[in-house]
């Protein structure tokens, strides 16, 4: 039995190296002097030196701080909007017959499959008229489309797990819809709420297509990183990229035990 595991270990270690290598490179170029990385034809792959100069340079360059702050604001708007819309929708879908509610979920996932760029182009035209172009709310409203179906699905799952009679009992005890929500239901669905919030936050943080078309002049972080890369000065952005990547990796590692196939597939059961 012991021997049969050795090939698995070898494959796992090779794959682990492949998966960790790009992150390692990002860390390396963030902490190495430029003379050892960007300035060399064959950059060194081992950490021979250590410097914080790159970090200092990138933090001094204020043009990158604004996009990061904008990304944070957009991500919070998207996450909060996702909570509001999907809690309401999940609650309603749980009450109507499952045949009908499943159709609505499928419809929402179908909308999710429409290419972002196809939707972003006409939306950007409307948003110019509405004053939402180059605006954090504009980006957030568009990005909400990406997260709404999965959020609704997660919240529906949360409500389905509650006992059916729970709400009747709160009614008997004299609670109206709002107070039963506040004191009974919300504390019981806090795990799906947290997952919805974090997934929506992460999706918005990563989103590029809507952001670049709807807000090219007031860019979010991914868009401004793209600007830097396409202009060919990567070393300012590289340490910054690391700085903003670490929190998300922490979120993912935290979310790991919740990232079960079911949430990721949006409940399309096999």
């Amino acid at each position: 039995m012991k021997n049969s595991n050795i090939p698995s270990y070898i494959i796992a270690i090779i794959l682990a190296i492949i998966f960790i290598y790009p992150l390692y490179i990002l860390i390396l170029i963030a902490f190495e002097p430029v003379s050892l990385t960007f300035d060399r034809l064959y950059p060194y792959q081992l950490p021979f030196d250590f410097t914080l100069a790159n970090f200092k340079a990138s933090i001094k360059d204020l043009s990158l701080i604004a996009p990061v702050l904008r990304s944070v604001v957009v991500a919070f708007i998207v996450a909060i909007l996702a909570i509001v819309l999907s809690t309401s929708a999940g609650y309603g879908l749980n009450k109507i017959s499952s045949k009908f509610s499943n159709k609505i979920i499928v419809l929402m996932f179908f909308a999710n499959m429409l290419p972002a760029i196809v939707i972003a182009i006409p939306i950007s035209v409307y948003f110019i008229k509405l004053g939402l172009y180059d605006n954090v709310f504009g980006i957030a409203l568009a990005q909400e489309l990406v997260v709404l179906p999965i959020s609704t699905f997660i919240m529906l799952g949360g409500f389905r797990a509650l006992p059916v009679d729970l709400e009747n009992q709160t009614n008997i005890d004299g609670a109206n819809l709002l107070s039963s929500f506040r004191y009974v239901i919300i504390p019981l669905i806090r795990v799906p709420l947290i997952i919805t919030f974090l997934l929506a936050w992460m999706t918005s943080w990563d989103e590029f297509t809507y952001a670049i078309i709807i807000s090219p002049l007031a860019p979010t972080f991914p868009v401004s990183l793209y600007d830097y890369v396409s202009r060919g000065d990567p070393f300012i952005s590289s340490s910054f990229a690391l700085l903003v990547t670490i929190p998300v990796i922490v979120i993912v590692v935290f979310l790991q035990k919740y990232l079960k196939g079911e949430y990721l597939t949006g409940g399309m059961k096999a």
Partner: protein
Amino acid sequence: MFKNHTNYKYILFVLPALVYVAALSFFPAASVVFLSFKTPKGAYSLGNYYAIESGLLKSTFDTVIVSFGALLIQLFFAILIANILIKSLKGNKLFSTIFIIPYGISTVVSAFIFSLIFSAVGGFANSTLHSLGLLHLFGIASVNWYATQYTSMGIVMFADFWKNTPLIALILLGGLSSIDPAIMEAASVDGAGSFRRFIHIILPNLAPYIAIALLIRGVSEFNIFALPLVLIGYHPSLINTLVYEYFTSISSVDYSYAAATILLLIIVAFAVLVIKLGGASNYEKQ
């Protein structure tokens, strides 16, 4: 009667989300199709489509190659990873944490890292080849990873594999853990080796999960935009980058609608096909 009455009331809770999706998703998509027939002179014809026919055909073809290539690579490695993670190896927790890291690195950041690794001149990949002595062996200074359009597409596929394999692996891991260990044990007792167990037990049980993973990743694979834009620009253009290329230059905005309509058509066809064959119809039966 009473039940119907309550139903209507609860639909109100769902309405905001539904209206949202309809207004910001179905309506714009429909307007793209409508506008694609409008030529710069204001008449309605197929002019936009004829104008970009050859470029569109080529990038459609390239997109299909990249999508299917990346899908196959991802699927292969995801099956491998899921089969390793399902075993209770020592250190599996560490491995699964490492395998999920790419999921947390944003697409543009990962495209950026890969552009540093695969530079046209020098870069970290060449540096590795250099220190292994391979460059010296072939007598070249560095490998130009973007020498032909196929190597460029290969780079995109590799970056995409790196970023998205964890997602598929997680879905398949869910499928694997639903297989009863007793079946595996019984097969093992009956003398089936690990290869035959894989073909006759694991694969058939995993098939529906593979179908779902293919649907989810397949649709997003046709939509891949940030990765090719950062890594290879418009050489060659995939459909998404082609739409963006037309959109960003004023003289060809109308063409972008035509290209976008074709993209929409491909996606809808693919989605309907897979939904008919796979997951969603099962979901409705639940």
